[in-house]
C-alpha cells in the first residue's frame, strides 16, 4: 500500500488507479524510434500534479535524445509488475502517449525540483550541463488492468 505522502502528491483529475501508479512507480519504459526502428529504454520519471506532463532526464548524447530530436512522438509504459505469477491478476500497466520536448530556463528549475523530490539521488546527474530534462506532454493514457481490460483517458485540448 502506498504511504500517505504518496497519496497527497498524486496528481488530481485522473482516476485513482492512474494517480496511484504515477505516484508509486519509480521507473518507466520509454519508446522512441529512429527511421522506423523502435527503441525502448528504462528511465526514472516523475509526474506533474495534473498528470499532463511526465518528466525524465537524459544526456544529450543518448540514443533516446537523438531519436526525440528527429521525432518527438513517444510512449511511456509505467506498470506495477512485481515479476511474479500474481502479476497476471494484480498488475496494472499504464501507457502514456504524446510528444516530448526539452525543458529549459526558469521552467527547468521548477520542474527539476519536482523531478528531484522523487529521485533525490539523481541530483548530480540532473545538475550536469550535458543532462537534458525532458517532458512528455501526455495526450492520452491507456490503462490495462485485470489482465485484459483497457480504458483510455484523453486530456481535452
Amino acid at each position: 500500500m502506498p504511504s500517505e505522502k504518496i497519496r497527497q502528491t498524486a496528481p488530481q483529475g485522473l482516476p485513482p488507479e492512474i494517480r496511484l501508479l504515477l505516484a508509486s512507480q519509480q521507473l518507466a519504459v520509454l519508446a522512441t524510434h529512429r527511421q522506423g526502428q523502435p527503441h525502448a529504454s528504462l528511465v526514472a520519471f516523475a509526474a506533474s500534479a495534473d498528470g499532463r506532463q511526465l518528466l525524465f532526464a537524459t544526456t544529450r548524447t543518448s540514443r533516446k535524445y537523438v531519436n526525440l530530436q528527429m521525432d518527438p512522438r513517444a510512449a511511456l509504459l509505467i506498470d506495477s509488475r512485481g515479476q511474479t505469477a500474481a502479476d497476471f491478476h494484480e498488475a496494472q500497466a499504464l501507457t502514456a502517449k504524446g510528444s516530448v520536448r526539452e525543458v529549459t530556463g526558469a521552467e527547468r528549475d521548477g520542474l527539476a525540483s519536482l523531478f528531484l523530490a522523487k529521485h533525490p539521488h539523481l541530483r548530480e546527474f540532473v545538475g550536469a550541463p550535458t543532462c537534458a530534462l525532458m517532458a512528455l506532454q501526455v495526450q492520452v493514457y491507456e490503462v490495462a488492468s485485470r489482465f485484459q481490460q483497457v480504458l483510455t483517458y484523453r486530456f481535452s485540448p
Partner: protein
Amino acid sequence: MSMLLSLDQITPVLRPQIGGKASALAQLARQGFPVPRACCLPVQVYNTYVDATGLRERILMELNRKDFQEMRWEEIWDAALRIRNMFLTTPLPAEMAAALTAELQGFFGTAAVVVRSSAPGEDSAQASFAGLHESFVNVRGGEAIVQYILLVWASLWSDAALLYRQELGLDVAASAMAVVIQELVAGECSGVAFSRNPNDETQTVIEAVYGLNQGLVDGVVEPDRWLIDRQNRRLTHVPPSSRPAAFQPEGETVVLRDLEPRQSAVPPLTEAQVWEIFTLAQQSEAAFGSPQDVEWTIRQGQIYVLQSRPITTVATEDKDQRPWYLSLHRSFENLKVLRRRIADELLPAMTAAAEALQQEELTSLTEAELAAAIRHRQEIYSHWVAVYWRDFIPFAHGMRLFGQLYNDAVRPADPYEFMILLAGAPLASLERNRRLATLAEQVRQDRDLAAKVRHREFDALPSEFKEALDEFLARFGDLSCPATGGQCQQGPEAILRLVGIMADQPPRPPAQPESAATLTKAFLDQFSGQKRQEAAEILELAQASYRLRDDDNLYLGRIEAQKTAAVNEARRRLQGRGLDLPADLPAEEILKALLDPTYTPQLPEKSEGTATAVIEQARQLIGQPAGPGLARGPARVIQAFPDLADFHHGEILVCDAVDPNMTFVIPLAAAVVERRGGMLIHGAIIAREYGLPCVTGVPDATRLIHTGDTITVDGYLGMVIIE
C-alpha cells in the same frame, strides 16, 4: 518424504497445516475415543500442486476478471464451475501423483474410505463450513482417492464457499485446503449428537438414521430424534413420520435402499445406545471445552466418532448465512417437485392473469378507476416478480446440477460443453422468431408484396399474408408492445417494419448443434444400470430448466405489458391535457398527476458527476465468454425499448440485459454484449441458439460503448474491443 500424516503424527501445533477436522480427529484419538483409521493430507500438498501446475494464478485470474462485489451469484457460479473444471482437467504432476498413490495404497490397501475437506479456519467456533465443502464416501484404491482429493480441493472454490468466505471477510487468495482420508465404517445406523441443542441449551439432541448418515446430512432421510434434559436426564423420543429407506455403500458409490419392514417398525437405536451416545457427546464437550456437534456411527455394537466440531449456532444463530448459500443448490428431488409446480400451477396461472387483464377495457375507465387499475396491475406484476425469484430462478439450478454431473463424468476441455445437450429444445421466443422469419421469407420471394410492406399498405396486403400477420399479433402482439416503442400501437405497423428489414437480408437459421446426439450418447455411456437412468432423468430435467429459463421471462413479459398498457393510457390522457411528459417519468408521478389535475409531475433529481478535463473511453472491456465466435460491427446500444426500433442488420446488440421481449432483433444482430453476467442467462442462451458471439457481464457496457462505435466481440476470450 511422506506426504500423508497419520493421526498419531498430528500435534496441536500442526492445526494451521491440517485444518479443524483433522485436528479434532487427532485429539479424539489421543484421548482414547474410538475413531476410524485415518490420515491427513496437509495444505502444503495443496499449495505444491497449485504452484507446480500454475493453477493458483489461473484461479485468481478467473476471480479477478471483475470486482467480486459486483459479481452476481450466477457469475460466481460460472466462475466456480470453470475453476472446478480446472481441477478436473489438471492432474497432479506425475511424480507427485505416483508417490501419493503409493502412499495411500500402502495406508489403506483396498479398504473403502471417505475423503473429506479439512480447511484451516473451517469448523472453528467462529465459522462453520459444514456442508459448504464436499465429502466423498466409499472411494477405493490409491488412484481413485487421488481423483476425489482433487474434487475436495476444488470445493474450496465452490460458489457457496466463495460467498461465505467473502461474508466472513476471509482472504480468498490465501485459501488452501487440507484433506482427511478416513476408513469407511459401514455402520448399521449413524447420526449426529449436539451436546447442547442450538435451540435450547438445557438439552442434548441425538438424531439417528439406519445406514450411513448421508441422508441425514442432506435432509433426504428423516431421522429419529431424542431430546435429553442435561440436568434431570429426562429422555423424549420424537420418531419420524416413517422410516422408508437408508443409504448403503454399494459398488463405488452410495445408494438409497428400501428398509425391511421389521427395521422400519423400530427406531435405529435402543435406549441403552441413546445413553451411550449421550455420554460420548458430553465427553467430547469436556475434551474440547465447548459444545460439540458429534457425527457417529455404530457397527456391530461398536460406536465410532467420525468427526466432532464446535457448534457455532449457539451464539450467532441469526447471522449464519450458510442456509441461504446452501439453498442456492437444489437437489434433484427438490427440482422435480418445483418443475411440477411451475408447469402445472404457476405458468397456467400467469397466462390466466395476463388474459384477464387483456379483457379489461381501459379507455372507458374514469381517471380514478384507471388509477386503481394501474395500482392493481402493479400489484399483480409485483406478485409474479416475487414468484419469479422464489421459484423460477431456483429452478434454473437444474441446468447447473446437470452441468456438474456432465463435467465430472466427461471432463471436457470446455466447461460449458454441456450447454450443447440442452439446446435445440423448443423455446417460445425462438418460435416467435421462426414465425417472423417465415413472414420475411414470403416478402423476400414476392416483389409486389415487398413493395406493399415497405409502404405499409396494410389494406392492400393479400388476405393470406394478413391472416398470418393477425395470427402472429394475436399470439405475440402484446409481447411486442414494450419492444416497439414503449407504447402499444395495437396494430401491425411495427411488425411490418421488422418483417421488411428482415426480408432485405439473407435468411439466418438458428444454429443446429450437430453433435448434440453424439455428446448425449458419450455422456450416458459413462453410466450403467440405475445410474444411467438417473443421468438421463437429470438431463431431461436440465432441458426443462433451460426452456423455462427462457419462457418464464415471456410469461412475465405479458403481465408487464399489461401494466405498461395501463400506464400508457394514463400518459395518453395527461398528454391530452397538454402536459409534457418525459419518457423516464416514474409511474408514481403519472398516478399523482392523473388524480390531481393541478399537479405538475416531476423528474427525480439526478446527481451529475463532477466535470473533469479528462475524457474516459473504453478500449478493451472484459466480461465472460458466453458464446464462442468473433464479430465486428457497429454497436447499437439499447438504453430503452424505443432504441430497438432503430436496430439494423449486422449491428452488435449492446444492452444492460437481454429482455426476452427484445430477442426478435437477435436474428438481425452480428453479436451480443450484455452488462448482466452469466452463461445461462437469457441473452447468452439465445445468442448460442443463433451461433452468435456473445460476451456477458461487462461492467458499464451501456455507458462505455456508444451507438455507432465500431466494436469487435471476442466470444472466445470474453472481450469487447472498441475501435
